[in-house]
């Protein structure tokens, strides 16, 4: 089922991103081999100018990947009408075994690109561009991820056959399902709420701590906690936030909240969450370079700013989620 406008757009975006990085690879190799900051030769000047192109390209890829991520979920949700048993994105993603891997790859590419841009940003602040080789090595490392994401999407979309009977969010996120998703949703509301709020509080506090103290250790920890916070946040959405939004005690689904029936409330949750996680991972990604002489002042400054963004993002996410819970008519916990 490739002749769907949104699918063509997604494949186009993923394919073009791969192509762009592929074309950039020879130049990246050249940078790695021939870079010599001390030289004033014309080759060095050309290489330096090319670095502008690369950071622009990767920023573009990042923005496109974020857009593609939204479009991917949006489209999966819409296609649900085509599959027996599918009522939202979950059903569509379950049509074949490539659906969820494709989604996860898409998210991974987004976070990796964000981490790369964080490293790129600190590097361009330092007068001797100390991370140039590492950066371009990492750019080449990014390529297989992009290619994998493209491949998974292609497999997924080309394997989409209407009339496949699929399982829906009702069965996947139902509390009886024996899967990770089922286990996450099966958390009883009270512990889930405790876990959710304590994780959000710890992550936000650590981000604030790092924002003030700027240490390398807390920076690395922030990346770990952001990743963990992301998982807990998703668990929270699965186990109780979504229930309050749907006002239904058994509807655990992270996708239906993106639908117009629920006023697109999911976007208000996910955008700050993704931004916060990307910023937290970025803050961690630059910590290994905190001891490079020319970065000693820069890394703490940049990571403090990223930490502020992380704190703000998680806080906003928590506030928005709490707002949805409080505004809901559903009662999960008896007082």
């Amino acid at each position, binding site marked *: 089922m490739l002749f769907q406008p949104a699918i063509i757009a997604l494949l186009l975006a993923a394919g073009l991103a791969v192509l762009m990085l592929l074309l950039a690879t020879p130049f990246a190799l050249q940078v790695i081999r021939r870079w010599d*900051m*001390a*030289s*004033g*030769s*014309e*080759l060095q*000047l050309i290489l*330096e*100018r090319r670095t502008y192109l690369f950071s622009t390209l990767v920023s573009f890829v990042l923005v496109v990947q974020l857009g593609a991520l939204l479009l991917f979920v949006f489209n999966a949700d819409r296609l649900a009408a085509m599959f027996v048993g599918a009522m939202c994105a979950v059903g569509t993603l379950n049509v074949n075994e490539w659906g969820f891997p494709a989604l996860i790859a898409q998210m991974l590419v987004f976070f990796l690109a964000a981490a790369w841009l964080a490293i790129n940003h600190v590097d*361009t602040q330092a*007068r*001797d*561009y100390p991370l140039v080789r590492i950066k371009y090595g990492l750019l080449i490392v990014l390529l297989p991820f992009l290619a994998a994401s493209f491949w998974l999407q292609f497999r997924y979309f080309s394997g989409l056959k209407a009339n496949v009977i699929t399982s829906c969010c009702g069965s996947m996120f139902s509390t009886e399902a024996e899967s990770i998703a089922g286990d996450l949703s099966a958390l009883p509301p009270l512990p889930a709420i405790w876990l959710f709020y304590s994780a959000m509080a710890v992550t936000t506090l650590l981000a604030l701590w790092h924002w003030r103290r700027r240490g390398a250790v807390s920076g690395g920890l922030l990346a770990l906690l952001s990743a963990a916070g992301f998982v807990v946040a998703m668990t929270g959405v699965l186990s109780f936030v979504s229930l309050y939004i749907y006002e239904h005690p058994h509807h655990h689904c992270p996708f239906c909240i993106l639908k117009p029936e629920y006023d697109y409330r999911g976007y208000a949750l996910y955008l700050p969450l993704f931004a916060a996680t990307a910023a937290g991972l970025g803050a961690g990604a630059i910590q290994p370079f905190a001891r490079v002489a020319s970065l000693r002042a820069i890394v703490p400054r940049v990571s403090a700013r990223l930490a502020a963004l992380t704190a703000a993002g998680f806080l906003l996410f928590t506030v928005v989620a709490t707002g949805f819970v409080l505004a809901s008519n559903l009662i999960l916990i008896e007082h």
Partner: protein
Amino acid sequence: MIELLDIRKAFNQNRPNEYWALHGIDLAIEAGKVTAFRGPSGSGKTTLLTIVGCLSRPTSGRVRFKGEDISALPERFLTDIRRQSFGFVFQQFNLIKGLSALENVILPAFPTGRPRAELVARAGELFARLQLAHRAQARVEWLSGGEQQRVAIARALINDPEVIIADEPTANLDTALSMEFMAILEGFTAAGKTVLLTSHDPLVVESSAVHRVVGMRDGRLIGD
């Protein structure tokens, strides 16, 4: 203030038409003085000015600006230094057509992110000092040659640089306007700014406003 050590600059390196514009220049430039480079066209004086003014990097050799070695700085940081510390007055004035004099003057400050109101106020002061206030809103292509040069000077001063670099500033001016320019130049020295200029106009290089004249030929210095 500015020290040059064995500066060489090549164009079209490793190609058949390789050409060395500078062959080992050693020079120290004092702060607060007016230094003029004199020489025939093709002598390398403009290339030397671009290196001093952080517009380009030498192929080899060292440039020190206020004690810091800037010869291997990437363009991004050279641009920072250039924006803060150097103001340029070009031979062709190089104003952007279609924009008003005011817009042209505040352009160099755009990347600094200073608020527009502040920039307009600063430009107003400069226009007043250069007797251009009545022309601020006029498009630059409607201005006379002398007015255009004063707009170019105002533009060079908007970021309050320590060094003013002027490339053949009087080449497109008649005697009266050239004299006027030299008067403005003396104002710079009085304000403590360093001025570097190239010229083969006797009116400039023999003027009392110029403290030092450096001769150049074929990419080398010839005695002061």
